[in-house]
């Protein structure tokens, strides 16, 4: 049985134009110690999926489907039970390490908070544990840093603090939502290495959300490509990156200028713009930007189909080659 199993997850959010679907029928599994990358552009529903797993969607959001942790459906739990899981069995780190830390509290106190909440650690015990965690995430001079305020640290250091906080109760699953997007490249490398190392050492499962195919490709074993609130392609990272089947993933891959690649004419582009939630086509969400789209794409949403070992895609035309 998978550690985390998301099936047919649908989330509707309140917008000024009424309820709009942000996530539509997302399904995936995460094994114990497994790593899953979720990749997609803005508004594709990747962050909403993560927040749905955490149970931290904005007020008024409607969630259906199942999110099972060790076989127990999280959506069926009451708020109190979900609080016991958050930060304890499932932890999350966010994109902006600056705004994600409380500016008026010292970092030691902020890291100790889940320890106190879920493990009942207090005083010197909590402080020792915090020091151990800070050391574990490689923050230089933890004994001094523990009493610092967030604004006294650099972005990379703050993200290490966030990771220490997420790690504090040895969670089964770590959700990382664009953890390195706000950081410099060399710092991003440090943080990704740290996350990799922690996953290997602790055996926790990782869901890494990013818009950067490179980050996902280097960090996770499996990958789900999202577009317009749905997973359009899913499978083993190596296999997918070697041979994308969905026209959107293919387009995304081709649109990235790669370092050291021979320059042969202009970059391939996906026409049109990233759609807004309320404007999504109802059948295949990519139909209006897709070169292969035919009448059926406008009429009927494609289902996920297995197209090879460890690779599934949702496209009516996946067998055909691009025009």
């Amino acid at each position, binding site marked *: 049985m998978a550690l985390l199993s998301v099936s047919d997850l649908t989330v509707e*959010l309140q*917008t*000024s*134009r009424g309820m709009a679907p*942000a996530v539509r029928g997302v399904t995936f599994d995460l094994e114990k110690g497994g790593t899953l990358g979720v990749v997609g*552009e*803005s*508004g*594709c*529903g*990747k*962050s*909403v999926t*993560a*927040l749905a797993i955490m149970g*931290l*969607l*904005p*007020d008024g959001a409607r969630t259906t489907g199942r999110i099972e942790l060790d076989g127990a459906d999280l959506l069926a739990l009451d708020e109190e039970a979900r609080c016991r899981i958050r930060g304890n069995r499932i932890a999350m780190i*966010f*994109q*902006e390490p600056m705004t994600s830390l409380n500016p008026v509290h010292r970092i030691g106190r902020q890291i100790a908070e889940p320890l106190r909440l879920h493990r009942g650690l207090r005083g010197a015990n909590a402080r020792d544990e915090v020091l151990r965690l800070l050391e574990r995430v490689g923050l230089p001079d933890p004994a001094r840093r523990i009493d610092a305020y967030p604004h006294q640290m650099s972005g990379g250091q703050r993200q290490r603090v966030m990771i220490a906080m997420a790690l504090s109760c040895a969670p089964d699953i770590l959700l990382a*939502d*664009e953890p390195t*997007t706000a950081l410099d490249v060399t710092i991003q490398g440090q943080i990704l290495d740290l996350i990799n190392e922690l996953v290997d050492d602790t055996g926790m499962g990782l869901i890494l*959300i990013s*818009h950067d195919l490179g980050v996902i490709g280097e960090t996770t074993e499996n990958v789900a490509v999202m577009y317009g609130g749905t997973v359009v392609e899913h499978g083993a990272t190596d296999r997918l990156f070697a041979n994308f089947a969905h026209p959107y993933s293919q387009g995304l891959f081709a649109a990235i200028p790669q370092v050291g690649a021979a320059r042969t004419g202009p970059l391939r582009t996906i026409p049109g713009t*990233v759609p*807004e*939630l*309320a*404007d999504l086509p109802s059948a295949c969400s990519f139909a209006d930007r897709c070169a292969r789209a035919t009448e059926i794409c406008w009429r009927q949403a494609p289902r996920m189909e297995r197209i090879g070992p460890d690779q599934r895609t949702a496209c009516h035309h996946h067998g055909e080659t691009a025009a």
Partner: protein
Amino acid sequence: MTETVSNSDRGSGQGTGRGTASLGFLGRALGHRSFMIGLLLTGAMIISALVSLVWTPHSPTEIVIAERLKLPSASHWFGTDQFGRDILSMIMAGAQTSIVVGLIAVSLGAVLGVSLGLWAAARRGWTEDVIMRLSDLNLAFPVILIAILLTAGWGPGIINAILALGIYNISVFARQVRGAGIAMWEREFVLAARAAGKGNLAITIEHVLPNIISIIVVQATISFAIAILAEAALSYLGVGSQPPNPSWGRMLSESQSYIFLAPIIAVWPGLAIVLSVLGLNLIGDGLRDLVDPRLARRR
């Protein structure tokens, strides 16, 4: 209490404005209930002031001792005061005073305050320091204190009330405009205008002012409401409008001597003030929602 969706889903947040914007300002205004109530109340105040210029049920100043302290009746809808004057007529005429004082005081404060605020935001450095220290100094003197000083120096009069309110409003507007202006100067489109060779004055007029005009309008509405309250208070204390000029504040102060005899005459002018101020405040809050949904959160 709500949590927002992660910043990485930038596109979804950006789009929400587009749908409502297409409705148009007027359409959204008509659907904004408290804004419409505010408009109605303020409209009523303005109309009664205008009507009172040409017609009132009775003379607001004529003393008829025989008719004094009458309860509301068919000929005197709101009753009469201690001199037998018609209260409804006095309230209609009193609206004139409130509006005139508010208009002049707010315009004075807005014109000078906005200019100083824009100047401070554009120049920064010591210019800003001087303007802000002056405004600190100004804020050390609340309206009533300024009015007291002016009255003690020059004797009582409506001009003092207007001046006191105007002076006070200068720093209110200057602060608000400086803050909003500095935020605008940090936007990239201002940098782009500089790259296009625009000078400070041109940037202030073309980019900074149009983008903060809504803040100024909202502030003006709220300041107008505060001015009506303050004028009433000053007249109540005897340092504002002087007899025979009709004024809601003075009506209240006079009514207090007859509170045991005819408590009802203390009710009408107060109601007039409350409804006028409420109307303007509702307009101000409504405008804030309507022109910029992001601003609405700030308060």
